């Protein structure tokens, strides 16, 4: 235990840091109307979509990036980014997996996401997004049979324009804030999901995002609509190569749940976090918002955030329908020089709406980890209830944890419960577990996984085990 001093770090723990050697087709760097037209053209989009993007871009020019995040970073030069990159000669998405470039299949295989259906995790359909394009979607036929639409959003824009036009931007308005508006102007690919009335989606739907090209931003756009009495569980995962530059990932995710519908959205975020000196890593500036539009609807966010140099996101729920429910379960781990400012917003508009927030922040190394949350009860939100629990765990004594919960209450008969704790992994706990034969890192892993248990158990079975391992890997080297 005394052999290695605390706060010593090891490198090379990020096993997804490889680059796929595939030529990419990039449009010129920079952000202007021509670039947006070019992106739209690349995607062969209808005029209405281009108009929508251009409108967003017009609004963007009157906006500036927000600065209030509790993270330090240099200003981003938005003209110095490639806004679109795709594997070369990738004109149309291959019709079948046989036509997918073997290098891409190999990439996903290496990431543990086999795309060949016979190898795929049982019961999980995957949409694979590589830089700015979706390269494969599995189990499409099977889902088609029951009317579930699961496809890249670029395809949905062409094939299901009515649904997309109705819901795109309905939860995150085009002018929401700088990064959301930027996404609306330049978004490239992401997934579209529609679950028809009364259908319980029989398999997990999952999108796997991979950034490969350098100096490229990824602007994913995901839209999930659960029609009345339907249910869907959706999971996203993300990784990127190890590079010295910082790359921007600015996604918009919108969820809409109609009457009695339920959406469970899980994220395992493992973007490259930068090296042990804080060089490189992804800026993960993401807007995620769900609208419980219908009565008795439910939206549940579960996130395991282990990667990225900076994580800045607040998956939120607008509880509009009466008796609707919002949940937020989060584990955010920061090590070395990582910075995370994450949390949620629960906006209670309808009667008897309920929300539950469980946030677990773990900081190690010299990192900074902030929970920021807002619970708002509108005056019409009679009998609304919220429960919030924010726990922070510190590893070593050079990291920091912050909790910034905000409550706005205009409703008379609502109730809010808030609990917050900050603890350190105690030397006693480590010694006790090591006395039973576990190494310092295994001991820390068991303690941290215990701390996260309430959140991890909300992940779909197939991913809970992976997430547990990821929690351990993220903290490797942080204990002496």
């Amino acid at each position, binding site marked *: *235990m*005394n*052999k290695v001093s605390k706060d010593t770090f090891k490198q090379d723990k990020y096993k997804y840091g490889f680059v796929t050697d595939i030529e990419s087709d990039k449009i010129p760097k920079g952000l202007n109307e021509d670039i947006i037209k070019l992106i739209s053209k690349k995607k062969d989009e209808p005029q209405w979509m281009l108009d929508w993007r251009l409108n967003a871009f017009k609004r963007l020019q009157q906006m500036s990036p927000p600065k209030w995040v509790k993270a330090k970073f240099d200003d981003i030069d938005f003209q110095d980014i490639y806004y679109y990159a795709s594997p070369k000669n990738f004109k149309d998405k291959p019709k079948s997996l046989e036509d997918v470039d073997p290098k891409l299949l190999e990439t996903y295989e290496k990431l543990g996401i086999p795309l060949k259906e016979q190898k795929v995790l049982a019961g999980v359909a995957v949409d694979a997004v590589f830089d700015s394009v979706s390269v494969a979607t599995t189990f499409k036929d099977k889902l088609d049979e029951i009317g579930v639409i699961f496809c890249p959003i670029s395809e949905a824009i062409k094939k299901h324009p009515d649904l997309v036009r109705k819901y795109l931007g309905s939860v995150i308005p085009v002018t929401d804030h700088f990064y959301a508006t930027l996404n609306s102007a330049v978004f490239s690919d992401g997934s579209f999901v529609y679950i028809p009335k009364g259908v319980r989606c029989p398999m997990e739907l999952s999108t796997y995002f991979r950034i490969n090209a350098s100096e490229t931003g990824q602007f994913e756009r995901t839209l999930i609509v659960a029609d009345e009495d339907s249910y869907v569980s959706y999971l996203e995962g993300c990784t990127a190569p190890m590079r010295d530059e910082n790359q921007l990932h600015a996604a918009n995710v919108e969820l809409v749940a109609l009457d009695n519908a339920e959406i469970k959205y899980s994220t395992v975020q493992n973007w490259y976090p930068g090296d042990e000196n804080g060089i490189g890593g992804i800026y993960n500036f993401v807007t995620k918002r769900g609208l419980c539009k219908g009565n008795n609807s439910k939206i549940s966010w579960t996130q395991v955030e282990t990667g990225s140099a900076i994580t800045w996101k607040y998956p939120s729920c607008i509880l509009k329908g009466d008796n609707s429910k919002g949940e937020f379960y989060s584990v955010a781990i920061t090590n070395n020089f990582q910075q995370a400012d994450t949390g949620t917003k629960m906006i209670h508009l309808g009667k008897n709406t309920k929300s539950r927030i469980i946030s677990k922040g773990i900081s190690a190394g010299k990192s900074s980890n902030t929970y920021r949350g807002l619970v708002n009860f509108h005056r019409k939100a009679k009998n609304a209830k919220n429960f919030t629990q924010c726990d922070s765990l510190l590893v070593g004594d050079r990291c920091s944890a912050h909790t910034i919960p905000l409550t706005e209450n205009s409703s008379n008969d609502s109730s809010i419960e808030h609990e917050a704790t900050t603890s350190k992994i*105690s*030397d*006693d*706990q480590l*010694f*006790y*577990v*090591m*006395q*039973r*034969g*576990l*190494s*310092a890192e*295994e*001991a820390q892993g*068991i*303690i941290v*996984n*215990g*701390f*996260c*248990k*309430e959140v991890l158990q909300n992940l779909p079975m197939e991913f809970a085990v992976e997430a547990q391992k990821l929690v351990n890997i993220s903290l490797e080297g942080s204990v002496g």
Partner: protein
Amino acid sequence: MLNIKELNVSVEEKQIIKDLSLKVGSGEVHAIMGPNGSGKSTIAHTLAGNPNYEVTSGKIDFNNEDLLNMDPSERSLSGLFLAFQYPIELPGVTNASYLKQIVNVHRKHNGDKPIEAGEFLKMLKEKSSKLNIPMDMHSRFVNAGFSGGEKKKNEVLQLDLLNPNLVIMDETDSGLDVDALKSTSEAVNQLRSSKRSFIIITHYLRLLEYIEPDYVHVFQEGSIIESGDKSLANKIDTEGYAY
């Protein structure tokens, strides 16, 4: 088995153990008795490698290896087990999965495959019943909200699961009622063998009536002041430590 030579130990710059020497042979049971604050628990934690206890001089041989060169987990894997006086709580970690992990880390060290779930459950049931531990205790979090007695039984259960060759019991009797003391002692007696040695730290005779020691050492102000057989324990019981 264990040979402690002229050991000096400090905690936060304060010397607690002074020139302690003690030999424990295979299969022997040694009781260390002494008043509160005499440094008994310091021996236990020093042997187990607690980093808060600083060895300033001396040597400890354990099965012909230099114990002081090993970290706590290496000591555990080479067969040293400490039953804690105050077992530590691990919130969120279920007892069953914790016990399975510690069993597997020892199996791995011995070159064995991880234990099958069914086999583990069978073993857990059998060993729990010896200690009157209900199985539902294993779905609770390790030591969290356990009564004093439950914590101590859980320590003895871990001892039984890990098969150590040197067991240090740090006031295992405190917090146990008569029935629990009986079943715990019986379980310990069943674990006595020619290959397994015990150091039992206590300040009451009570435990030694159930687990009969080969040697009794009286410990005061950081050193052993007298050694003898079981009759020494009886003497302390009637006359107190100030005899």
